[in-house]
C-alpha cells in the first residue's frame, strides 16, 4: 500500500524543508561573522601593537582581495584593510565578552546543528515519500485505462405508417397505433446501450450494460383521503440493465484443448445463443428484428452459457462455433416463476473453414426447449389445455453464405407454443387483449338472446361487428391453446454497391403461427427492403419499408370450428360474454405498411 499524503500534509512537509534551508543559510552567515570577529579579536589580543606614523599605537589589518583572508602583516597581494587605534581596544574586556559570546554562539551552533540533522532526516523521508507517490499515481492511471473500457450503442428512427394495424413490434419496445390510424408517425429511440467492460485480469471480464426502454402502462396513486398523483410511467424512457455478466476466457487454455481456445464461460445476464449471433449475420438489427426475435425469443437470458470457436487444424480457420446454456424461463425483464429451466444450443459449421466470423458457407442449427413462465402451483392445476403453461420449443436451421461485399441466408423455423397472442400483439393489439373492451357491447334493458347468450345491461355481450372483443377471443383460442405448432421460412441478405457507401438489404419472413389451424387467419408474410448508408466507422443510416401482410382472404369462422382449439363459447373476456353460437367475422387482421428512416451509432 502506498502512502498518499493529503494536500495539507504535503504543504506542511514542504514548509519544513523551506525552514530548514533558511536555517542553514542563517547558520552559514553566523559562522562567517563569527569567524571574522574571532580573527579580529584574536589578532587584537595576541599580536603586538603596531605604531602609526605619529607613534600612536595602531592595529593594522591587511586583506587579500582574492582570497578574502585578513592578515595582521603586509605581504604580496595584500591591501591595507583598516587601522584601529589600540587605545580603543580594551583587550581583557573584549576577550571576556568575546569568550561569553563565543560560548553562546557555540551553543547556538550546536542547537542549529542538531536541528539541521533533524531537518535533513525529515527531508530525506519526505523525498522518499514523494518519489513513491508519483509512480503510484501513474500506476493507478495505467491500470485504469488498460482494464476498463466504455462503449455505446444507439438506435433511433422516424417511421410513418401508410397503413397502421395490429402486429408484433418491429424493434424493441416499439409500439404503434392499430387499424383506423393510417398516417401515424413517430420519432423513436429504441436502444441506448452504455457498455462498461472491466478487465481486472486477462482471463476475466465483467460487462454491465444499462439500456433505455420505453415504459408502457400507468398507475395513478391515491395518497391520503383526497390526494392523488398522476403516473409518469406511460411512455417514459426508463433505464434497465440489458447485460450484466462475468466472462471467463481461459478455460480451454488451462485444460490444454487448443482446438477450443478462445471459448468463454458466461454467467449472469447474457446474450442467448441465437439472436445476437443472427443479428450480426444479418447486419441490420438497427432496422428490424431477426426472425425468432421478432416472433418471441428474447435476445437476453439470465443463466450460464458457453460459447466459442472450434479450430481443429493448424490453419487457424474456424470450422465450427458453438453456444449453449441453461437459463431462466422468464425473459431478462421478468420475474422467474418456474421450478424448471430452459436450455438452448446453437452450432454453426463452416465446412470449408472460415477465416473470419461468418466468412464462407455455413450451416447452423439452433434448438431451445423450455416452459411458460408460470408458478408451479398454477402450472400443475388440472385444465383441459395447458395454454401458456405448456412447454415451448424453438428450432431454427440456417444455410448461409457471407462475403465481404454480400451475404445471404435462408432459414427454416419450427416451434411449439412459441408464438402467443401477446407476441402477435407486442407492437400493437386490440385493447381487449390488454384488459379493456373495445367497440360497443350489446346490453338491452330487458334480456335478449344474442349469439346464443342471454344479454342485458347487467350481462353485456360482445358484438362481433363492433370492436375486436369477439375476434380477440378467437385469436387467443388459436394461439394460446398449449398445442400450437409454428412453421416459418425466412430469407435475408445484403449487397454492397461497389465504389459507394451504400448497401441494399432485405428480409422476407413467412410464418404460420399455428399450422394445425387450416386456414389460419393469422398466417402472415413480413418483408423489409431498404438502402443503408455507411457514413463512417461509427455511424450508419438507412431508409426502408417494413410491411406485414396477413395474406389470407378475409374469413369468418363458426363457434363450433373455433371450439376445436381453445375457444370456450359463452365464456367471458374482460367481464363480457363471448359469442356462444354463430360466426365470428373479420378474423384476418389488416396489413401494415410503413416507411422507416433509421440511424445507428456504435462506439
Amino acid at each position, binding site marked *: 500500500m502506498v502512502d498518499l499524503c493529503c494536500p495539507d500534509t504535503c504543504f506542511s512537509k514542504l514548509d519544513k524543508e523551506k525552514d530548514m534551508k533558511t536555517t542553514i543559510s542563517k547558520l552559514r552567515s553566523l559562522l562567517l561573522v563569527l569567524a571574522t570577529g574571532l580573527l579580529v579579536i584574536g589578532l587584537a589580543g595576541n599580536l603586538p601593537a603596531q605604531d602609526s606614523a605619529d607613534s600612536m599605537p595602531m592595529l593594522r589589518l591587511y586583506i587579500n582581495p582574492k582570497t578574502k583572508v585578513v592578515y595582521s602583516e603586509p605581504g604580496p597581494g595584500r591591501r591595507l584593510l583598516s587601522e584601529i587605534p589600540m587605545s580603543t581596544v580594551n583587550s581583557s574586556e573584549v576577550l571576556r565578552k568575546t569568550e561569553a559570546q563565543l560560548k553562546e554562539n557555540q551553543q547556538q551552533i550546536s542547537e542549529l546543528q542538531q536541528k539541521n540533522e533533524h531537518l535533513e532526516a525529515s527531508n530525506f523521508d519526505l523525498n522518499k515519500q514523494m518519489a513513491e507517490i508519483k509512480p503510484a499515481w501513474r500506476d493507478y492511471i495505467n491500470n485504469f485505462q488498460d482494464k476498463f473500457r*466504455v*462503449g455505446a450503442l444507439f438506435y433511433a428512427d422516424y417511421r410513418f405508417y401508410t397503413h397502421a394495424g395490429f402486429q408484433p413490434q418491429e424493434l424493441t419496445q416499439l409500439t404503434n397505433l392499430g387499424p383506423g390510424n393510417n398516417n401515424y408517425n413517430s420519432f423513436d429511440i429504441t436502444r441506448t446501450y452504455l457498455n462498461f467492460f472491466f478487465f481486472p485480469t486477462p482471463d476475466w471480464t465483467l460487462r454491465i450494460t444499462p439500456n433505455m426502454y420505453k415504459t408502457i402502462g400507468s398507475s395513478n396513486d391515491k395518497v391520503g383521503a383526497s390526494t392523488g398523483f398522476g403516473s409518469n410511467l406511460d411512455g417514459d424512457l426508463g433505464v434497465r440493465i440489458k447485460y450484466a455478466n462475468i466472462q471467463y476466457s481461459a478455460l480451454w487454455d488451462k485444460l490444454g484443448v487448443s482446438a477450443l481456445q478462445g471459448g468463454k464461460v458466461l454467467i449472469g445476464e447474457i446474450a442467448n445463443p441465437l439472436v445476437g449471433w443472427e443479428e450480426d449475420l444479418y447486419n441490420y438489427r438497427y432496422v428490424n428484428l431477426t426472425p425468432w426475435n421478432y416472433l418471441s425469443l428474447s435476445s437476453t437470458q439470465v443463466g450460464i452459457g458457453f460459447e466459442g470457436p472450434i479450430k481443429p487444424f493448424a490453419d487457424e480457420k474456424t470450422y465450427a462455433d458453438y453456444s449453449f446454456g441453461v437459463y431462466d424461463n422468464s425473459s431478462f425483464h421478468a420475474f422467474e416463476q418456474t421450478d424448471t429451466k430452459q436450455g438452448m444450443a446453437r452450432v454453426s459449421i463452416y465446412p470449408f473453414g472460415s*477465416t*473470419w*466470423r461468418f466468412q464462407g458457407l455455413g450451416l447452423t442449427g439452433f434448438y431451445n426447449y423450455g416452459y411458460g413462465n408460470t408458478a408451479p402451483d398454477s402450472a400443475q392445476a388440472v385444465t383441459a389445455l395447458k395454454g401458456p403453461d405448456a412447454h415451448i420449443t424453438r428450432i431454427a436451421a440456417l444455410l448461409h453464405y457471407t462475403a465481404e461485399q454480400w*451475404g445471404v441466408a435462408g432459414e427454416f423455423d419450427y416451434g411449439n407454443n412459441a408464438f402467443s397472442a401477446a407476441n402477435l400483439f407486442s407492437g400493437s393489439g386490440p385493447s381487449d387483449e390488454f384488459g379493456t373492451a373495445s367497440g360497443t357491447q350489446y346490453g338491452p334493458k330487458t334480456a335478449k338472446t344474442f349469439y346464443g347468450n342471454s344479454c342485458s345491461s347487467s350481462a353485456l355481450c360482445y358484438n362481433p361487428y363492433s370492436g375486436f372483443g369477439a375476434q380477440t377471443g378467437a385469436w387467443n383460442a388459436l394461439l394460446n391453446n398449449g398445442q400450437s405448432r409454428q412453421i416459418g421460412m425466412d430469407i435475408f441478405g445484403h449487397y*454492397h454497391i461497389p465504389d459507394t457507401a451504400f448497401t441494399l438489404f432485405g428480409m422476407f419472413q413467412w410464418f404460420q403461427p399455428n399450422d394445425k389451424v387450416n386456414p389460419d387467419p393469422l398466417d402472415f408474410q413480413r418483408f423489409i427492403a431498404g438502402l443503408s448508408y455507411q457514413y463512417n*466507422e461509427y455511424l450508419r443510416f438507412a431508409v426502408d419499408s417494413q410491411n406485414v401482410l396477413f395474406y389470407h382472404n378475409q374469413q369468418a369462422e363458426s363457434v363450433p370450428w373455433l371450439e376445436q382449439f381453445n375457444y370456450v363459447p359463452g365464456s367471458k373476456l374482460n367481464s363480457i360474454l363471448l359469442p356462444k353460437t354463430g360466426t365470428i367475422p373479420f378474423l384476418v387482421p389488416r396489413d401494415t405498411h410503413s416507411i422507416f428512416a433509421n440511424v445507428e451509432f456504435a462506439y
Partner: protein
Amino acid sequence: MIVKTGYWRRGLRLAGALLGIGISGCSAMPFGGVSAPQASAKAPPPMVQNCGIVSIGSPSNYACDGKVYTAFQLAKLRQDWEKSHGG
C-alpha cells in the same frame, strides 16, 4: 519545299532514340528518399464502407481484404491517411 532524304530520316531516328534513352535513364534513377508525391501514390487504407460487418458493438468489427479490424483501427488508418494527404 522540303525533300526528306535518307540522311534526314536517320537523324530523326537517332534523335528519337537518344530521347528515349534519356527519358528511360532518368526514370530509372533512384530518388534520395520518399517524397510527398510518392507517398500519395500509396494505396489508401481499407475504408469501412468496403468492408464486411463482423459484429456491431463496442467496438464494431469489420472484415477488410480477409483481415478483421475494429472500428477504431479503421478510423485511425483513415485519419492518418487523410492527414498525410492534406485532408
